[in-house]
């Protein structure tokens, strides 16, 4: 297994547009740390390319971005790139973070049963707010950042050498920190709290708590 990171970054609607840019920050962090990165963005976020990298390059950390469901994750234009009972065996021996709705529910569980070291993701919809006026510069959208920064922290924690459980707890702590910040000093943004809380509650870890990148 190679100490490398595979990132999928589809970009074809508002949601994936935001995920694309915020995951780009994580990619830069990985590169700064000297980690080999296989970056599959836009049309390259396809089943064929993902399967090829997983099979031939064997990266030890996989970071999926995109829409999903309980048993699958999609890439560019909604193409299914990983599906439980189909090709999830390719994730064996890897650590996976799926920034994708609901996939921890079934795909996460099955993957771990079939040899994934740890699967981090969401067991329900991931929800975030954004400011459409900042859509051309998603990284400057502070509202979106309140949601996307904590979620991407999982991969950053792995890059820093932390364990799965530490990465998981750190992410939840950042959601909580943002909630507390709003409660104490940003009264006009209180409408965000139920949604931040929802994401925090539905961030889950399945598998080996002690696994590290």
């Amino acid at each position: 297994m190679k100490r490398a990171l595979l990132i999928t970054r589809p970009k074809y609607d508002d949601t994936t547009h935001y995920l694309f840019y915020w995951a780009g920050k994580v990619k830069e962090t990985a590169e700064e740390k000297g980690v080999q990165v296989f970056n599959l963005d836009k049309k390259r976020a396809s089943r064929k390319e993902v399967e090829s990298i997983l099979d031939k390059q064997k990266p030890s950390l996989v970071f999926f971005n995109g829409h999903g469901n309980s048993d699958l994750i999609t890439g560019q234009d909604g193409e299914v790139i990983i599906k439980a009972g189909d090709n999830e065996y390719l994730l064996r021996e890897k650590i996976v973070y799926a920034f994708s709705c609901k996939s921890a529910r079934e795909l996460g569980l099955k993957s771990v049963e079939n040899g994934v070291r740890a699967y981090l993701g969401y067991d329900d919809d991931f929800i975030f707010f954004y400011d459409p006026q900042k859509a051309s510069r998603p990284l400057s959208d502070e509202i979106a950042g309140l949601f996307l920064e904590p979620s991407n922290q999982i991969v950053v924690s792995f890059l820093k050498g932390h364990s799965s459980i530490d990465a998981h707890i750190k992410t939840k702590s950042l959601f909580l920190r943002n909630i507390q910040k709003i409660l104490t000093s940003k009264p006009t943004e209180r409408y965000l709290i139920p949604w931040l809380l929802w994401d925090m509650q539905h961030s889950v870890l399945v598998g080996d708590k002690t696994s590290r990148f």
Partner: protein
Amino acid sequence: MEEKRTEKLSEEIKELVIERLEAMPSDKKISIGADGDFTKEELIERVKKEDNVGKKVIQIQLEYLRLMKEGVFYEKSFTDNQAQI
């Protein structure tokens, strides 16, 4: 009789949720996974219709109110207890 009471409760909950959604600014959007992106007005419409998105919004708001009542945001150990394996 019981049915009428449940219906009334459901209407009251919907009204409560809509009232809470009214506090959202109109110039922001919300992304709800594969269901798409919504403005405040569109979200309120979904709650009124009680479709899948509307039901999810109601669930999220009620869950929030429950946890708020428990004072969960101020418990330091909260995130530590949430690790699910």
